[in-house]
């Protein structure tokens, strides 16, 4: 995995020292809150509903076991012993004291971690497919490019004060596991007719108040031209993006307003200019060095499809079920990818305690060559597991409650922190997620329902990606009461779609029943084996709507 070099380390140390100084000047009164706020936000420190919150970047979702242990330690020493993994592959600590924040950040810097680019109108930390480098269907490891973008964007003078925050996601396979069409820029690795590897470039996606699906402006961009092209997109945006209206400042609005053709033409023109300047041709040595950092680990030989696993599957239905839902094919023979579900029934989605983080770090050392991934669905991943170790991993995951066989199922809920933590919220998200996961805790029923994504956001900012849930819930306020608007038909995958509102918002007391009626309608109406979205698209909203609101 990527190892910081001396330059990166020195940079981080400098930032920690700077921040320590800023905090002490704030505490002494030398800096007012207005002066300090942008500085703390540049270091990922927010003031939330109850306290300061520290948002720590996990670049492209990759963590070593040592980093995970350090996160556990920081959460225990400086917070309340748990953290929340977010849809942007970050981890948030909810109870950081301002006085302690410099020490917390210093402790993170010791393991090459930081909270930079997790806030503000900059290029945010780049997200990548959580199976990067190991997925059987991958073309190339997208993290190489995520890291190149990180290095290019971290201190880019032109892009520190963009009209708004800017999010980039990269996926390395045909199958989009990074929700690239709902990012400001989404990159998908692909091959051209001659077999060369490059990117499909998607711009102008995003959720929030105005959800829009990103548009492809380049079918194929050779890898070597990536930064020049991104620079061109950013320049067009920087020049034309609306700074006068925060709700219109995202690139998605620009793309929507000018249209994809015009956007493409403007970017191509700027691209030609950037290339003439020759300023940011990619240094092949740098690319080679970074590629080297992400070279596959030396996999000790492991048997493919070991007999003992098959035997256990034959006798232990629970194991067989877990293996089916929570593992994914690995590119290396004899290995497998294992998902650890952070969605046990009744728990806040994405939360892990310090003890659990340490247990995951131990599992990574024992079973996954010391590596862990964070998925944007708020789960953890052990990327390099020997198939023969599956029974052992299963036992270890069960011991900490992370073996619920629900990856991609209804109870694998994405939920933002909502009003339990977030200062911007209009309603709570977590208790609704907890109640739904309790309602559907019966695994036979859950598996009979099949793949189904339910996402919850506590306000229109849509951090819980409700627009792209097959079922989405958006918390709204109705005369001081929590209500939930239901959308159906969203998808963050290949055919990215924004869900449709199916009717009036339902009360908090009714929302779980309403979801259940909706799910039951699907189960009754589907053809054998028909996935939820297919059924929804075939049947249309009316029968679903009737069922949801029948009892209301």
């Amino acid at each position, binding site marked *: 995995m990527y190892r910081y070099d001396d330059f990166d380390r020195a940079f981080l140390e400098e930032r920690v020292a700077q921040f320590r100084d800023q905090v002490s000047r704030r505490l002494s009164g030398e800096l007012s809150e207005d002066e300090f706020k942008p500085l703390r936000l540049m270091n990922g420190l927010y003031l939330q*509903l*109850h*306290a300061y919150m520290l948002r720590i970047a996990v670049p492209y979702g990759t963590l070593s076991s040592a980093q995970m242990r350090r996160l556990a330690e920081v959460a225990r020493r400086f917070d309340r*012993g*748990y953290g929340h993994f977010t849809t942007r592959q970050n981890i948030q600590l909810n109870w950081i*004291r*301002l006085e302690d924040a410099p020490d917390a950040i210093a402790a993170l810097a010791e393991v090459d971690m930081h909270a930079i680019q997790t806030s503000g109108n900059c290029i945010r930390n780049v997200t990548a497919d959580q199976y990067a480098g190991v997925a059987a269907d991958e073309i190339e490891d997208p993290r190489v490019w995520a890291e190149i973008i990180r290095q290019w964007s971290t201190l880019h003078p032109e892009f520190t004060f963009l009209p708004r925050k800017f999010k980039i996601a990269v996926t390395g396979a045909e199958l989009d596991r990074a929700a690239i069409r709902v990012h400001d820029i989404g990159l998908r690795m692909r091959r051209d007719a001659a077999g060369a590897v490059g990117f499909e470039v998607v711009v102008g996606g995003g959720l929030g108040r105005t959800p829009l699906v990103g548009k492809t402006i380049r079918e194929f961009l050779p890898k070597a031209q990536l930064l020049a092209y991104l620079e061109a997109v950013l320049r067009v945006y920087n020049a034309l993006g609306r700074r006068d209206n925060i709700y219109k400042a995202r690139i998605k609005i620009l793309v929507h307003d000018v249209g994809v053709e015009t956007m493409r033409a403007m970017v191509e023109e700027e691209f030609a200019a950037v290339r003439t300047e020759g300023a940011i041709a990619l240094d092949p040595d740098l690319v080679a060095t970074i590629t080297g950092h992400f070279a596959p680990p030396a996999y000790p030989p492991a048997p493919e499809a070991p007999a003992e696993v098959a035997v256990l599957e034959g006798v232990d239905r629970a194991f067989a079920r877990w293996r089916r839902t929570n593992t994914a094919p690995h590119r290396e023979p004899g290995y497998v990818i294992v998902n650890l579900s952070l969605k046990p029934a009744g728990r806040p989605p994405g939360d892990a305690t310090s003890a659990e983080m340490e247990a995951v770090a131990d599992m990574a050392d024992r079973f996954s060559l010391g590596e862990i991934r964070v998925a944007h669905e708020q789960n953890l991943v052990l990327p390099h597991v020997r198939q023969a170790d599956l029974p052992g991993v299963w036992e270890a995951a069960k011991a900490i409650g992370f073996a619920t066989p629900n990856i991609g199922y209804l109870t694998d809920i994405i939920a933002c922190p909502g009003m339990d933590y977030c200062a911007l919220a209009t309603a709570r998200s*977590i208790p609704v997620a907890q109640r739904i996961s309790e309602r559907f805790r019966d695994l036979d029923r859950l598996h009979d329902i099949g793949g189904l994504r339910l996402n919850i956001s506590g306000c229109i900012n849509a951090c819980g990606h409700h627009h792209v849930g097959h079922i989405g819930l958006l918390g709204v306020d109705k005369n001081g009461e929590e209500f939930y608007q239901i959308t159906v038909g969203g998808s963050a995958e290949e055919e990215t779609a924004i869900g449709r509102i199916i009717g009036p918002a339902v009360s908090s007391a009714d929302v779980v029943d309403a979801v259940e009626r909706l799910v039951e309608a699907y189960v009754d109406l589907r053809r054998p084996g028909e996935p939820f979205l297919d059924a929804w698209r075939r049947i249309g909203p009316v029968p679903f709507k009737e069922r949801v609101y029948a009892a209301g």
Partner: protein
Amino acid sequence: MTLQAVTANRLADGAVVFRTPAGAWSTDVAAAAAVATGEAELLKAAEADAARQIVVGPYLIAVAAGAAGPVPTVHRERIRAYGPSIGLPGAGEG
């Protein structure tokens, strides 16, 4: 008659606090000064505390008189005053 209190976050640790009748800040909303009139003065005093690095972002909230003291009437402010409505995953961990 609507009562109001002033809340803020304590600068040093971020804790949610309420201004008391004595002009101190308490983490207990029940200890808050609740006024029917003169809320502008109350807020002004709180803003002076913000200028003196004691608290951050003071603002008025609606409260009702409860048996033990003021109780926030708005849902968000109740959660803010009493903490997350859910069990904290790390609870009990050392």
